[in-house]
């Protein structure tokens, strides 16, 4: 047993989970603030703990920006009545939110969020089958939602669950196919090596733009975000699969959705945008010093934040698809497109070699 390894892993896990949860909390805030700006409102601007007004300028500023809002939201979820309706299937009703949130937290395990810091690789588990692991875990996410729809024993959740299962599995195929050109070019499943390749040859978005577009759209569908939020379409299904849920159980679904969003952003950054690298200022080599290690992590976080903002921006800019349009897009447009993309990439590589 290598205790050193275990302790470092534990520390990395603790930090990553902490950061991801923090990002979830503030992604929710960002969502509310950005939607407010887009709609010419101000958004959350007055929630503050009592001590905030004693801090001179900063306290007011943070309150205005709504920085304390996520804390209040979290506390509210915790102290709300934990109500379980009589008609539900009890065990599954408790199991569903847990199953929704666990895979969402596991996806981040293989994403390299930095190069090297203090002799440690900045990734929780440097698996050789990184991409396969991610897809395996992501496809587990559908169970939580389907189970939620089934457990609630009510019409709207049921329809939401059915819809989401069909939607998620449909786009999973396109997503899986869209990554194959990347693998063809790099020839490795390990995410760290994919980033290493990009550091040498340039970002993969330049080599496989179509793959990126398909991946991006598929991740919108996979995370049930607008314009593909059919499973919880408010105007049709009230709340979709989580209609019957309240308090912390509802919060876990929320957490799962945003964690998924963060994980997909991380995947896109890693696969197509060079992960922690930047092509200038010598930032494309694994860090030698502590400072450059931290800079690499920051680069990764900034890239990821950009994608999260993109997710949020799209949500408030585009209308929702109809269900037949959604399935049409997935099966009749993206699936053949992804196949052709693979074929073209393979043939170009064959001609070049």
């Amino acid at each position, binding site marked *: 047993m*290598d205790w050193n*390894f275990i302790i470092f892993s534990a520390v990395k*896990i603790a930090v990553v*989970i902490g950061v991801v949860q923090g990002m979830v909390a503030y992604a929710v805030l960002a969502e509310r603030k950005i939607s407010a700006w887009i709609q010419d409102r101000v958004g959350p601007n007055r929630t503050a703990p009592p001590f905030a007004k004693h801090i001179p300028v900063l306290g007011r500023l943070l309150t205005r920006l709504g920085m304390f809002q996520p804390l209040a939201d979290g506390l509210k979820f*915790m*102290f*709300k*009545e*934990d109500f379980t*309706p009589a*008609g539900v299937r009890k065990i599954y009703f408790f199991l569903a*939110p847990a199953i929704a949130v*666990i895979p969402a*937290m*596991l996806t981040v*395990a293989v994403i390299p969020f930095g190069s090297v810091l203090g002799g440690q690789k900045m990734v*929780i*588990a*440097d*698996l*050789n089958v990184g991409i396969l*692991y991610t897809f395996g875990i992501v496809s587990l996410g559908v169970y939580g939602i389907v189970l939620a729809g*089934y457990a609630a*024993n*009510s*019409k*709207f959740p*049921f*329809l939401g669950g*059915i819809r989401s*299962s*069909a939607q998620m*599995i*449909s786009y*999973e*195929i396109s997503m*899986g*196919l869209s990554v*194959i050109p990347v*693998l*063809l070019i*790099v*020839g*490795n499943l390990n995410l760290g090596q994919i980033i290493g390749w990009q550091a040498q040859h340039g970002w993969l978005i330049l080599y496989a733009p179509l793959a990126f577009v398909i991946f991006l759209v598929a991740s919108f569908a996979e995370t049930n975000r607008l314009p593909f939020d059919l499973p919880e379409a408010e105007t049709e299904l009230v709340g979709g699969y989580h209609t*019957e849920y309240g*308090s*912390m159980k509802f*919060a*876990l679904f929320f957490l799962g959705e945003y964690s998924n969003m963060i994980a997909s952003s991380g995947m896109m950054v890693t696969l197509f945008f060079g992960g922690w690298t930047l092509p200038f200022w010598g930032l494309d080599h694994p860090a030698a010093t502590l400072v450059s290690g931290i800079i690499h992590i920051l680069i990764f976080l900034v890239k990821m934040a950009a994608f999260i903002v993109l997710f949020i921006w799209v949500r408030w800019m585009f209308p929702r698809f109809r269900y037949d349009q959604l399935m049409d897009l997935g*099966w*009749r447009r993206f*699936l*053949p497109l992804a*196949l052709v993309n*693979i*074929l073209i990439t*393979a043939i170009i*590589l*064959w001609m070049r*070699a």
Partner: protein
Amino acid sequence: MEQSQLMQYLPVLMLIVVAIGFAAGTLTISVFLGQSAKRTKAKDMAYECGANPIGENTPRFSIKFHLVAMLFILFDIEVVFLYPWAVVYRDMLADHATRNLILGSMISFMFILFAGYLYALKKKAFDWKN
């Protein structure tokens, strides 16, 4: 080698434990901290926009969903077959002996996959309009 391969998965295992603990913990905390209020009959009802629920709570749904599930299984397995091919593609291209084999075998595989796709398409399996 084998040892270190398995050791790679140890952090994943730890993360799983943490994730399960987190989910279980938050659910339990909520049970204990959450306030309890009166249960009423209306509160226990399945939500249907305020009206009393009508009919079965798990209604019948379109057969299309089953079709999608079956197609998913077929295509997903085929996608998985593509992964090992994609990983070794570069190495086999570099070798002159296997250069055409690796492309040809995959083109024939894609041909079969595409024939299946075309079949499903023509059978209107992806048609959700009606």
